């Protein structure tokens, strides 16, 4: 479209990166103007990350040409990339956890007075950087004492401290709540005004329409198209990403909802949530909506026996849930899919089958002898149902793409055939293809009579899947909305404590 190459902060010409046996990035042209927010989208494995790693100097053997501000450069190491003003903000934080915010922010360039650290100057510099991202924290706090979303903002501040001219953000909002996303967008806007070229990677399309100027879609290592955001529609982008048309994302089938399965009365864990009471029926998908910190995950952890309740009772099928360990709650039919896939969810070093069968080890054993052979048909069936790729149960989970890892995590809980399954952010950070499969699997599960409690920050997902949504705010259940009543807007208002009640 624009013929003038003036104002181009980044130009990648015919870049290609081969791995043994495959081409991860294949003859891609990619341009970003100064002062532009350029969204880069594609499913997991489409080549986005490889393209950006190229930019970050992770490879010394890429083919093609990269120009930064019109200068032909060879980005063969991270140091070189940094020198040319390329800043990367990754999904996974690169902060040292036991170390203070200040040391993290100023790592490598701490101000000194002679041989000693100039603490006063360092504190001042750290505070200035923090202010840029709207954080008002004590720079001496260690990273492990601040919340995950604060850490994400500290990470951004750290990269901004290097004064980059090209900034790559990889899923920067995945750990942020709505308000924090707004704050981040304000920061991005101010960076754009200062003439920084921003590459914004996200699975979350509404965000892209909200913030990006142009969008580039990649699939299978190739660039499919680059378009100004005004000329692209949501459906069109999704279609380009998945290579097929997506008609109805949330197609609802009729489900028969049965009698009461789960009954929670007056449940409290002091300091986290208070006097929570609700019922959920067989075959029902009960959504739980709330901002981060509303107590959703804490509630789930008590329901499944990971934490102890201070007050209240839990009943499954009319019988009081006994015991205080997760194993005992599991036995009584309550299962929990964690929001933290990599640490709490999966043993990444083990193959798919070991992970999927991990909950039912005892059930597959007779006289203490474990029979994997007995569980393998189940693993294969679930892998087929969830289209886990590659379809090989002996594959190490850590080597699968994020979407497939999430499917394995779901398969593990499906294998246990629970009466009540609590899903905590079941589709966070996965691509659209995986998301669709996970959604239809959740619906199928409910159709088969399982009670699903769906905790999600993805409002379209909550609205699309839930039969009912409970709104949680500051540790209390404040409202309940039926499928007909709830929309993204009404949920958001209610979660923020606004709207008619």
């Amino acid at each position: 479209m624009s013929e003038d190459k003036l104002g181009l902060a980044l130009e990648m010409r015919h870049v290609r990166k081969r791995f043994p046996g495959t081409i991860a990035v294949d003859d891609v042209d990619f341009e970003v103007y100064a002062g532009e927010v350029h969204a880069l989208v594609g499913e997991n494995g489409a080549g986005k990350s490889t393209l950006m790693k190229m930019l970050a100097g992770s490879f010394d053997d890429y083919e093609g040409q990269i120009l930064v501000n019109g200068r032909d450069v060879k980005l063969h190491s991270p140091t070189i990339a940094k020198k040319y003003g390329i800043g990367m903000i990754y999904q996974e934080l690169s902060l040292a956890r036991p170390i203070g915010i200040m040391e993290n922010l100023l790592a490598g360039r701490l101000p000194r007075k002679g041989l000693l650290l100039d603490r006063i100057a360092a504190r001042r510099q750290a505070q200035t950087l923090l202010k840029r991202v709207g954080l008002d924290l004590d720079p001496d706090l260690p990273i492990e004492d601040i919340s995950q979303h604060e850490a994400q903002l500290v990470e951004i501040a750290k990269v901004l401290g290097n004064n980059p001219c090209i900034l790559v953000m990889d899923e920067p909002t995945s750990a942020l709540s709505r308000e924090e996303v707004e704050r981040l967008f304000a920061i991005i806007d101010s960076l754009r005004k200062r003439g920084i070229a921003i590459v914004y990677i996200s699975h979350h399309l509404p965000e892209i329409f909200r913030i990006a100027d142009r969008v580039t879609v990649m699939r299978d290592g190739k660039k499919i198209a680059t378009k100004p955001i005004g000329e692209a529609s949501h459906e069109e982008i999704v279609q380009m990403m998945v290579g097929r048309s997506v008609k109805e994302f949330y197609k609802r089938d009729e489900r028969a909802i049965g009698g009461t399965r789960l009954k929670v009365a007056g449940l409290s864990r002091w300091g986290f949530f208070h006097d929570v009471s609700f019922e959920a029926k067989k075959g029902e998908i009960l959504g739980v909506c709330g901002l981060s910190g509303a107590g959703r995950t804490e509630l789930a952890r008590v329901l499944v026996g990971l934490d102890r309740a201070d007050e209240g009772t839990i009943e499954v099928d009319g019988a009081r849930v006994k015991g205080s360990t997760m194993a005992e709650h599991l036995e009584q039919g309550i299962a929990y899919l964690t929001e933290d896939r990599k640490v709490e969810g999966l043993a990444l070093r083990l193959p798919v089958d070991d992970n999927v069968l991990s909950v039912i080890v005892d059930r597959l054993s007779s006289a203490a002898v474990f029979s994997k052979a007995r569980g393998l048909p189940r693993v294969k069936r679930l892998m087929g149902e969830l289209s886990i790729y590659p379809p090989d149960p002996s594959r190490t989970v850590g080597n699968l793409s994020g979407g497939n890892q999430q499917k394995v995590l779901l398969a593990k809980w499906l294998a246990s055939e629970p009466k009540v399954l609590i899903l905590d952010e079941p589709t966070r950070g996965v691509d659209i293809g995986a998301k669709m499969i996970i959604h239809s699997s959740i619906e199928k599960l409910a159709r088969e009579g399982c009670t699903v409690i769906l905790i999600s920050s993805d409002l379209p997902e909550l609205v699309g899947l839930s039969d009912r949504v409970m709104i949680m705010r500051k540790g209390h259940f404040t409202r309940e909305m039926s499928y007909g009543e709830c929309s993204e807007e009404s949920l958001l208002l209610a979660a923020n404590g606004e709207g008619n009640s």
Partner: protein
Amino acid sequence: MSDNENPAAAAAVDARNVKVGSLSSLVNTAGVYGIALLFLVLGAILQVTGAIGNFLSPQNMLNIVDAVALVGIVAVGMSFVTYSGNYADMSVPTTMGLTGYVCIELLRYGFLPAILGALAVGLAIGLLNGFVVGKLKANPIIWTLAVNYVTMGVIRLIWVNKQIYPDMQGSSPEAVGLFDSIYRLRFWNLIGLPLVILAVLVAVGQFVLAKTSFGVKLKLTGSSPKAAKLSGIAVERVIASAFILAAFTATIAGLAVTSLSRVGAWYNGAGYDFKAVTAIVIGGMTLAGGRGTILGVLGGSLIIGILNNIMTLVGIGTFSQDMVRGAIFIAVVGINAKSLRSLGRDDA
């Protein structure tokens, strides 16, 4: 609709699998026995060239096997600790020492009470380690190292720095005879009791690790304790069991060593901690946990036994032998870590 979601990424993963395979093949179970064979060949070459005397003699082969049996017994039990992701049990040396003392001390009440008493004391140490590391989440190395020193203190306190002898405690000659035979009993004048015990332990250990629900839980725990816990596995109990098993085999080895030396001494088990860990990592069990086999550990013990024998025959002093073992340990752990890191994982 469901077909190949991301063939490019999957193919890249394939390529990485191949790479790791070639790098870590050095420490594969089958490879371990290959290396053991290489050491045997090395010994033979040294004998042919005249550097050492009678490496290949039947008596020397028997010496190797007997030494392997002792290291192997300790290593098989400790493997469970390593496999559970808790590195090693450093309290093994004094567990061996203390149980030897207890056995000799109780010999006056008969052979069986003495053995049972020693086992009870050993298992108590294992239970303590298991509780503190499993339940209270203490650092396994620091904790067991501390237990090692405390136990040494206990020995010196109770027996006032004295060594004790089985035949000087007023025990019956029959009991002393039975005690002596723990190490000396040979079937068909060839296969020693420790070797038989090792064979049984290896067979049972391999079965438990590979085939039982406990083994699967141990693998999940060692691979990712948090994910195991959130799968409803009683991680604390699994880890505690691993330490109890380590203490159990350490006790058996302690009795055998004490029977061999015919003296209760605090230093009876000295060095067995590190010999066992080295055998474990040479045997292909990663310190990160959740990987390896008992058969591999047996191969590792074999290598350690042959190596010690060759070094002794060549005339390398004890301290220098420690140095060689340390260097090998570092090399193996290094290769392991490198092969895991090339996978893009830094949890080795």
